[in-house]
């Protein structure tokens, strides 16, 4: 137990150190902006990883939850004058309730049917956001007021970097603890064999619903932060391609690995931004990476690299 706990804290401390040191290498605000986007994408991926990597349930519609969070913050603060944190909380509760309501019929489905259902839900959300122009601003999107926390107005790339980084560390810590809890063990059991898990007395439906709701709430909160940080939100955030992007990040980084989800988000957010020459070939390269990783590293980057490192290292004598 003690060793597990220390490994967990070790990873978290390392991540915190990286996050704290990164600004030393940032020459301008553009880098902060990319880092903020990376952190917020990573939060979505950490939640999604619980669902895909641990519970073995795919979702091709999580951008819908992300966008709902973003638009909840945008609409409640801009049109109704709610305080930012309250709007964020309301968005998260609303998305959580929505996820809870649809989880049972959705998660009863498997494989391709599950993919289709989550994909359909995401697309319906995207179309509604696109069409309800009076409320959402339609395809042009809408501006989002600045976030106030108490008397502090969060503005500027540097301030947002620390907020996003703090939220990321919190998400990682939560995820690591969840994985080590009853929930995490139940999820791994049902990933292996749902029927075996049921036979062992695990209420698989309850845990699947729970993890679906958790991942949706992660996405919603990240979406709210994203809307405030960018000061702008558009229906693209709800789109099918955005959902695919999230899944890709999880799978690229490594399924069933919290740090893998963070690494995947970092790579796929930062690469196209930093290599602007890339822009025209963005889709070509993204597609090739997806196929290549799935063929050669089906477990994803972080677990594959970790495995080969472990093979290199001589076995530790038992103490």
């Amino acid at each position, binding site marked *: 137990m003690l060793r597990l706990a220390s490994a967990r804290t070790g990873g978290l401390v390392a991540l915190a150190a990286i996050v704290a040191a990164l600004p030393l290498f940032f020459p301008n605000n553009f880098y902060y902006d990319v880092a903020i986007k990376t952190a917020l994408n990573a939060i979505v991926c950490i939640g999604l990883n619980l669902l895909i990597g641990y519970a073995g349930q795919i979702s091709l519609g999580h951008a819908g939850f992300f966008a709902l969070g973003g638009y909840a913050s945008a609409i409640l603060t801009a049109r109704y004058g709610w305080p930012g944190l309250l709007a964020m909380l309301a968005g998260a509760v609303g998305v959580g309730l929505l996820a809870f309501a649809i989880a049972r019929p959705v998660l009863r489905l498997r*494989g391709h049917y599950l993919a289709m259902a989550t994909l359909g839900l995401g697309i319906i959300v995207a179309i509604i956001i696109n069409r309800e122009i009076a409320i959402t601003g339609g395809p042009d999107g809408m501006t989002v007021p600045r976030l106030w926390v108490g008397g502090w107005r969060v503005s500027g790339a540097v301030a947002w970097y620390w907020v996003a980084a703090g939220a990321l560390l919190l998400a990682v810590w939560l995820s690591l603890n969840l994985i080590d809890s009853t929930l995490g063990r139940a999820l791994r059991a049902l990933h292996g064999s749902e029927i075996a898990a049921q036979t062992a007395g695990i209420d698989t439906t309850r845990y699947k619903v729970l993890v679906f709701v958790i991942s949706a709430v992660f996405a919603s909160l990240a979406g709210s932060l994203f809307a405030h940080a960018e000061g702008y939100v558009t229906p693209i955030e709800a789109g099918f391609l955005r959902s695919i992007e999230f899944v890709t990040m999880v799978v690229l980084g490594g399924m069933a690995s919290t740090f893998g989800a963070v690494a995947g988000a970092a790579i796929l957010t930062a690469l196209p931004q930093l290599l602007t020459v890339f822009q025209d*070939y963005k889709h070509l390269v993204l597609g090739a990476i*997806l196929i290549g990783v799935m063929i050669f590293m089906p477990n994803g980057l972080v677990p594959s690299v970790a495995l080969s490192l472990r093979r290199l290292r001589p076995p530790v004598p038992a103490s």
Partner: protein
Amino acid sequence: MTKSAAVRHAELGTASVAEFLQFLFSGITVGAIYALVGVGFAIIYSASNVINFAQGEFVMLGGMATMFLLSGGEPLWLAALLAIVITAAIGLALNKFAVEPAAHRRGGGASVVTLIIITIGASIFIRGAAEVLLGKDSHRLPAFSGDQPIDIFGAKLDPQVLWVLGALALAVVGLRWFFARTRLGKAMLATSCNRLAAELVGIDVRMILLASFGLSAALGALAGILTAPITLTRYDIGIMLGLKGFCAAILGGLGSPFGAVAGGLLLGIAEAMAAGYLSSAYKDVVAFVIILAVLFLAPGGLFGAKATERV
């Protein structure tokens, strides 16, 4: 009822009949595309249990390649034929270089999630390649037999629609013949029934998988070429078409080509009716709402058999 009221009523009647027919025609046209895409999903799925998310890209490739060859000076029929061959070759390559290496990896095949991501990756790749090579503009192919619409009870029917419907009918008849009469077709059916048993009687299952990708790609390209004169073609039309075709295939019970045809036509008509009578803004929602309702109420699809899963 006075005479003038009766006449007005009759006029209103013909007007609404014409309107209904108009919606029906546009529904059948769109439905035929969904049907052809859905058939592609069904063929690959029944041969390999793979859902090919790049199916919509074949439709795009068919239209775009024809356009490209036409602008290079080829006659329409040759351009169309070449486009089908090129798309089929891309379908074969997709299987050979992306799906097969993952599906037949040493130590067990890939999971559903892995294969879904591979085909999504392939669709993004194909779209990206088309974007770079063929550009981002919309294109319209010339109609095959003129643009003069045919008048049927006051509704206008684009002659190109007859081409689309004819091709769909031909495809259905052709597939029936293919699965019932040819060696390859029968082998494909056998593989979809029981892969191991098919392998034991000497069927080259990999070959079947390859053929299914080629056939699906060719059908998709055909749909793309025939509809490009009616709806525009663009490098990114494949996303929505692929998703709607997937809806059609699921509605038809996944793995049944003829179920997919029925599902596609049904979706197209429902979509056109909803756009005409309810709200055109929410036209694209219809297919997904229907599919969610079906999945929640009858997870096996409308025309799917009830199956029990073995543990």
